[in-house]
């Protein structure tokens, strides 16, 4: 059991951190060039030069392009209209048709941004080329924004995801183990024997939960080492602070596991309920999708999600170098949660039935 507890989460960390990225790469790109001029070719060349697009083919017609998209052979189709170059020079204005496969809405959004960036870039160069000497005076002042990405300068997804996934692993393992544990004693019948002994509720519960607390802390340690060694995730803040927070956080999860344990009779039931909560917690934790973009009611629900707090804290401490005062509000909420959860767990654990 012990190797399973430690090896599987490590594998998950390594695999998930490499796979769970929102970067959209290798976009299958096709185009319909109705113009066949140097300008249209230059535009296509821009896409070709981008590392995000795999330029596939020049489709002969729109009908053919849409049938290819239906087959899933192409994700983005750019249609360059007839007389693209001529109209551009005459009217200084033209339209391009872009069709994007939006089955995966998130990816489609990202693809749209990429296409726009390339077209805009192309547009600027074009402006310079098309400008005539007489126009120079009326050229508008061009405003450019140069973003600086603080705390994750290169927008490295792994830096962002690894701490989050680490949270996930610590949570899942401790919740499942503690949820399963007392139910298992119920199933085997040892709980009945324990219940007729003078052992106190609190003694029994601490005895049951303490090992999992240690397991959780050990998992965090291993995860942090791997994050540093494999992914080179920075650790700007204080490790002590992170451990202090985690030690409170695991109490919340253990209390929750125990609570589940008390209301179920078999390991199967406990597993089901634990999964139910874990899935909701993960998807609403801000780990994969930002909480700010959730509807109002969902944002309120996330207030009761311990994973949300931990994800926030671990990212703050590791990537931003937040100090004690910065995470204090989150820490206090977690502490309150831990007290309530464990209170409920001890209260609902009955030696008599």
């Amino acid at each position, binding site marked *: 059991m012990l190797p399973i507890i430690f090896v599987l989460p490590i594998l998950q960390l390594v695999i998930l951190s490499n796979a769970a990225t929102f970067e959209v790469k290798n976009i299958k790109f096709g185009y319909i060039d109705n113009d066949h001029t140097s300008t249209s070719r230059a535009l296509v060349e821009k896409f070709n030069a981008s590392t995000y697009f795999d330029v596939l083919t020049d489709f002969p017609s729109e009908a053919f392009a849409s049938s290819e998209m239906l087959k899933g052979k192409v994700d983005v189709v750019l249609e360059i209209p007839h007389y693209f170059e001529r109209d551009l020079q005459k009217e200084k204005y033209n339209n391009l048709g872009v069709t994007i496969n939006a089955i995966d809405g998130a990816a489609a959004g990202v693809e749209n941004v990429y296409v726009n960036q390339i077209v805009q870039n192309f547009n600027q160069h074009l402006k310079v080329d098309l400008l005539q000497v007489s126009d120079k005076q009326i050229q508008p002042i061009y405003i450019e924004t140069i973003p600086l990405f603080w705390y994750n300068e290169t927008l490295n997804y792994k830096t962002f995801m690894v701490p989050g996934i680490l949270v996930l692993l610590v949570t899942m393992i401790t919740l499942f183990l503690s949820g399963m544990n007392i139910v298992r004693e119920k199933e085997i019948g040892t709980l009945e024997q324990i219940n007729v*002994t003078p052992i106190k509720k609190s003694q029994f519960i601490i005895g049951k939960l303490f090992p999992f607390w240690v397991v959780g802390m050990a998992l965090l340690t291993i995860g942090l080492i791997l994050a540093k060694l494999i992914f080179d995730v920075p650790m700007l803040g204080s490790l002590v602070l992170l451990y202090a927070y985690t030690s409170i956080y695991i109490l919340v999860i253990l209390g929750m596991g125990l609570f589940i344990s008390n209301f179920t009779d078999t390991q199967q039931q406990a597993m089901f309920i634990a999964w139910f909560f874990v899935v909701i917690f993960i998807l609403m934790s801000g780990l994969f999708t930002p909480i700010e973009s959730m509807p109002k009611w969902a944002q309120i629900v996330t207030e009761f999600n311990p994973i949300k707090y931990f994800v926030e804290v671990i990212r703050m401490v590791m990537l931003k170098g937040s100090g004690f005062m910065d995470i204090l509000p989150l820490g206090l909420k977690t502490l309150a949660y831990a007290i309530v959860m464990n209170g409920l767990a001890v209260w609902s654990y009955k030696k008599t039935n």
Partner: protein
Amino acid sequence: MSITVSNISKSYKNVKALQNISFEVKPGELFGLIGPDGAGKTTLFRVLTTLLVANEGSATVAGFDVVEEYKNIRNSVGYMPGKFSLYQDLTVEENLNFFATIFGTTIEENYDLIKDIYVQIEPFKDRRAGKLSGGMKQKLALCCALIHKPKVLFLDEPTTGVDPVSRKEFWEMLKRLQQKDITILVSTPYMDEAALCDRIALIQDGKILEIDTPKAIVKHYPKQIYNVRATNMYQLIYSLKKYEHNHSVYPFGEVVHYTDSRTDFNPKDLKLYLESNDLNNVEIEKTVATIEDTFMELAK
């Protein structure tokens, strides 16, 4: 009194597990609860060991009320559930140590109490409890139940699923424990074990049928029982049940226990009747009632 039970009733949803049960167990007594599966024996044990709260009635164990003073009871009773419920992944010695520690004692402190039993499993003390044989498991469970020198010992079907030799040994152990001033309440579905108890209560469908010493219970049997034997068992039972004067017909090992409803019964009539029903080698002889006969009669 070591155990007093007065008017205890307990029901689960629509099953009445115990109905108005009352009895008393004297200190140092070996008291047997005899009844078939589902009679309510385990429920009664769970009430007395404070694992279950009865709907009605009251009970005391070792002088403590099962509801008010349950904490004191847990310190002074030993309970061995019907299902083996020690930690299977701990060794024999670890299990014993564990339970000794929970009760705030050590193995050495009460070693004299468990010595007779423990020496039998000591060769396997480093073996995991889950890997022990059925009889060994029972002995270990008994040791764990005794480790804190309880005043009252509850044994729920301790010999179910145990081989006859181990069963016999187990009862000898109980007899020895009794001499060390431990009150023992034991339940069993085996009628032959009932005779080894000081007093027994026959229980069925949550009701007590009769409480007395095994000898007295047998004496209460109202009729003369006859052993009837013939070559064809099935035909014999069939014919006896068809016989108009039969009172009861029960197979009992290789014979049939038969009682007649008439007071002036003559076995020769029955023999003639059976022979006229094509049965050979018919033998009929008087026999004494056993607890099983009494139980069957009372449960009728």
